[in-house]
């Protein structure tokens, strides 16, 4: 069970908003400081590890840049949206950010409410209103990758890529 405070964002939240072009040249841990700087300045200082981001339709539309990694590095407990861009979702799997599609989720929450998410039971519940919605299924193999830190740990273990030098 994942439980956390909800931050709400609207439709068509682009990866440009999560990881603006100029931040691409920065090292990984600096990139997360730029999340939502254009549409919600100061948010990165307010968000806390374990918080939940709820988006509308086509969340993550746009560039294939590693925006999911910045969200993961901010400690987002999970991302839930009415629909998720499929390239962004691939990056969520690849970088190990829990990302769930749940039609209607945006209308079911106000900002600041608590969401309770069960990936196994495929449900999200609004603790305030009691409303429970069902999450779209994720193929088991993808869910396993997403929940276990993504693709790079796997490639590292199998000797396809070099370990990261910290």
């Amino acid at each position: 069970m994942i439980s956390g405070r909800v931050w709400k964002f609207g439709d068509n939240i682009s990866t440009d908003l999560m990881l603006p072009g100029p931040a691409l040249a920065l090292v990984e841990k600096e990139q997360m400081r730029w999340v939502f700087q254009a549409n919600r300045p100061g948010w990165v200082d307010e968000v806390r590890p374990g918080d939940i981001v709820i988006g509308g339709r086509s969340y993550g539309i746009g560039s294939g840049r590693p925006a999911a990694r910045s969200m993961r590095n901010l400690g987002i407990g999970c991302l839930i949206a009415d629909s998720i861009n499929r390239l962004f979702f691939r990056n969520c799997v690849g970088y190990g950010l829990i990302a769930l599609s749940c039609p209607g989720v945006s209308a079911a929450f106000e900002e600041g409410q608590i969401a309770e998410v069960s990936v196994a039971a495929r449900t999200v519940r609004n603790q305030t209103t009691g409303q429970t919605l069902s999450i779209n299924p994720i193929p088991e193999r993808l869910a396993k990758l997403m929940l276990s830190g993504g693709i790079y740990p796997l490639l590292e273990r199998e000797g396809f890529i070099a370990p990261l030098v910290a």
Partner: protein
Amino acid sequence: MGMTVVEKILARASGHATVAPGDLIVANADTVVLIDPSFYPGIWREILKLDDPRKIVVVFDHRVPAPDRTVAGMHAIGRDFVARFGIDRFFDVGYDQGISHVIVAERGYALPGTVLVCSDSHTGSGGAFNCAARGVGAPDLVYAAATGQTWFELCPTIRYELHGCLRPGVVTKDLFLWLAQTFGDHSDHNIEFGGPALATLGMDARRTLSTMGTELNAEFSVFEPDDVLLNYIRERNPAPFEAQYPDADATYAERRDLDLATIEPLVALPDRIIRNAVPVSQAAGERIHQAFIGSCANGNLDDLAAAARVVAGRRVAPGVRFLVTPGSQAIYRQAVAAGYIGVLVNAGAVVTNATCGACGGGHMGVLGPNETCITASTRNYKGRMGDPSARIYMASPATVAASAIAGTITHAGEFLQQGAVT
């Protein structure tokens, strides 16, 4: 049960007799394209083993020539990778330079019936060639390069049956904006284009549509094969391929018939594309500071020709920066030979080398605070081309060129009807 184009390509690539929406498949990646941002120190993970260097294409496109030392370092990492694995298909700064999706087109790398992946979101561009081409992001790209495999979860397909013919001055960028306005996003769906009007659309025109499929939030945007497409590929790549036609009894989520003659020039208002387009006349008069033509969607020879027709014998309005970035150096050379570059430069346009450039706000025309730009490129998102307070309108190359001359958003018809000599 019959299959759509994407289903047939992915069934073949995954070794299944049939596949259907909802299936998760592991597919062989026939072509794996790496671009310069793949090598950013903050993104790159050093690959120790490659499945097959002959499947790899490396293109430096986003930030060429290197505008700063960080990028110069990233290019050096990329060149080392190319040298270590002996990759032949490498496109560095110089004669063969260009945007990866344009290079893939020019070289015929997106073979019909095959699977092509790249980290970049506009990789769907290759769908014009009946190729299941898709942006997959950095982790899946590294996985595909190292193992030769990737995954897809199959989506249902929306089929567009194209009829009629676009009117003069109307292009597939306008058709794209109309699709985004009329039908909204295509989330969790593939798009398949076919029908009698295909023959009226050249490969540049088709590639604008397949590239912009990304902005409809579609999974794949593919075209049914025809002689125009097959001849284009055969002229460029001797490799064998098997084009995939949809089965007569293929199952579609929806079939939509379109009459191309009903489309008019449109412009997307700032910050988003989906359901945000209006006829050019409704945005007319909006003052602009910058006009841009370029990118994987609109840096083609057709696009430069359209711009040249509009600006011939005229001058860019004072206070407007008109930037034109060909999609490849090959297109640049063709445009020089055809006289388009001379016409553009004489009008006051600044023609840059081939690169992604201003489209991504990386270099070659970054927008400042509160500026207004009209662009024929891929995105009008907030902050996309520079300062987040900048307003970005998106339209066809002809509309952008006309706006550069007028200094305000303007319908190109006003210029073309005045009978300028090209």
